[in-house]
């Protein structure tokens, strides 16, 4: 295959969610002398852009985004073993967690996926994460944003607890707090002193950019 057709096929892999072919193409491209930046920016990123446009248009949907994200993750895993730091530009560091007492993960994972696809560096802290662990992570890693997910109505109290704990640890001013989940709302975010509320994974990206002052 020519490099041109390899790069075009890479874009198709993202759109089609074909992880195995994507990995194979990465190896082919590296063997042909390409470098990670060319592979990402000329190969896979156009596919990612197409997925994003397709989603906004209503031609592609959440499962297409998830599969595209999995392809990108597999590609990045190979490329980072070749070059430890790819020095990719990130829009910001985001940590996401489902708060203590709540084991729901799907919404949070979707948010993480969308943020990654849109250029954020995301660390998923998991579900049922103790408040103290969230605070400790913020202290150590200094993310730009902490995203707190809650699906149970009782979990909303824990979102409030996290905000208060961040204040107590004198960390609140250094991190933006976004809340989400079916039982949360703009009013709740305001009440607990969070920086914003995102009702779904799509608006989470917009909100993240907004709170960091990033324009489209």
């Amino acid at each position, binding site marked *: 295959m020519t490099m041109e057709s390899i790069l075009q096929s890479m874009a198709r892999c993202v759109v089609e969610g074909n992880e195995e072919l994507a990995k194979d193409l990465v190896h082919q491209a590296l063997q042909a002398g390409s470098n990670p930046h060319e592979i990402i920016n000329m190969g896979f990123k156009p596919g990612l852009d197409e997925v994003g446009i397709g989603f906004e248009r209503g031609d592609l949907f*959440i*499962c297409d985004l998830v599969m595209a994200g999995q392809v990108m993750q597999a590609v990045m895993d190979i490329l980072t073993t070749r070059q430890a730091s790819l020095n990719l530009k990130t829009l910001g560091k985001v940590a996401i967690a489902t708060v203590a*007492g709540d084991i729901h993960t*799907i*919404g949070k994972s979707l948010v993480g996926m969308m943020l990654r696809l849109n250029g954020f560096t995301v660390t998923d802290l998991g579900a049922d994460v103790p408040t103290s662990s969230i605070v400790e992570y913020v202290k150590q890693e200094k993310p730009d944003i902490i995203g707190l997910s809650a699906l149970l*109505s*009782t979990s909303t109290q824990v979102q409030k607890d996290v905000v208060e704990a961040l204040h107590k640890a004198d960390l609140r001013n250094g991190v933006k707090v976004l809340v989400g989940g079916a*039982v949360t709302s703009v009013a*709740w975010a305001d009440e607990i002193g969070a920086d914003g509320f995102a009702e*779904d994974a799509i608006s989470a990206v917009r909100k993240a950019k907004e709170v960091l002052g990033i324009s489209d």
Partner: protein
Amino acid sequence: MAGGGKVKRCMPRISLLSRKEKERIHGKSLDLLQKIGIQFNNKRALKILEAAGCGVNWDNLSATIPSKLVEKALATLPSRFLKAGHDPAKDFIVGDGSLSFVSPGQSTFILDLETNQKRLSTLDDLVETTKLIDAMDEITKFVPLVLPNDVPPPMRMLRAARTVLSLVRKHTVGAVEEEGVTPFLLEMFDAVLGDRARLRERPVYTAIINPSEPFQNGRALVDSILDLAPYQPPIMMQFMTLAGATAPMTEAGNILQENANFLGNMTLYQTAAPGWPIEWSLGTGLLDMKVGRYTAGPENVLSTLALIEMAKFYHVPVATFSSSACDAFISDSFRNGTDYTMCMLMNILAGVDLMWWPGELDGMNMVDLRGMIIGKYAADKLLRIRKGMILDEDHFMADTMVKMGFAGNYLAEPSTKKYYHAEWIKSDLFPPASWESWKESGKNVDDIVKERVAGLLAKYEPPHIAPEVIRELDRIIAAAEKARLA
């Protein structure tokens, strides 16, 4: 159609699965319970199951469940049981072939009837809607319509319970999924019933549980239910498998997972307390692949139909709440009507025992009082369909036709006067009218809805509760606040 001999009542029915298909679903479910099992996340539950012969993994807190234990549990499952009202006049039996309606419930948001805006629901909304539902004759089983968001989250369920127990004469339903709620709830039943042990003879309360992750449970949820084992109030199990998210994308996969989940969870509680009344509340859905929420649709209808049949196969009473869900955001639209009626009709034709009353928008996130009131229009018509028709000599009226001969005027026929009230369903919400009389009345739908709400609130009769019981309920709430808000 009714069996042989003189035909009395012809009732419409629908069926989807053959016996062989039901047995296949059952067999595959048993297989999954042995291959995957259920992650109960609860050591108390695992001890019960291990003693009964299940394989237990103490590292990931799961149990695989052998088929013979499931079959043993099914054999002890009651097929009909009493649901007591706080007022005995509101008692009803579930599983006796009748259909009962449950109020939709526990939404976080409400569509304000005055402003038509979505807002968080409050304690005042809970009080008003509780009175409204208790006054609605059509609804026999009460679920708190809204959650009081102006109450601190650790107290929401208990404040809802206290409000409901002091205002409702019907049978009530509540969620017991949080740590530490059950002991206070049982104290409330001590106050209201005189002794919590009376829950067995007067089961005025159903505990609703939502183990929503596939093949998983929360530790607190299981503890909360096991705490109720000595009193055995009915349990309403609701799994809400979401195709494409927490369950396979296919209808068959969604059905199979829900069925297996039901059998696994049912087995735990029957093993803990054989004969414990359980009803299966169906809410399988599909993930909206655009906005990532529960969606009401024809896919729900098909999987619900199949699962109603599985419930009948197991002789367990079955409820459906897909009838309450709607994807629309706008009240009183063709969309609402389509979603509610499609689900309600199919559920009725499949022989469901309990059905949630329509009245939620935006998936199931927002209560719509307008939809709840107008839902009566659909419910009246559907109940008439459910009633079927009588095919006997009196009703064939062949002799009357011979008597009337050609060009007979049936308006003047005594049999028309005799039968028209039973045969012709008239909506009391939108009474029969001509276009002209409708225009002359000057009323729009909102006027009718608000009039009906006002009428129901005026009709509402509070239960007879002694002042000392109310004081005791308030004392329990104060104690709970001290313990849970510290």
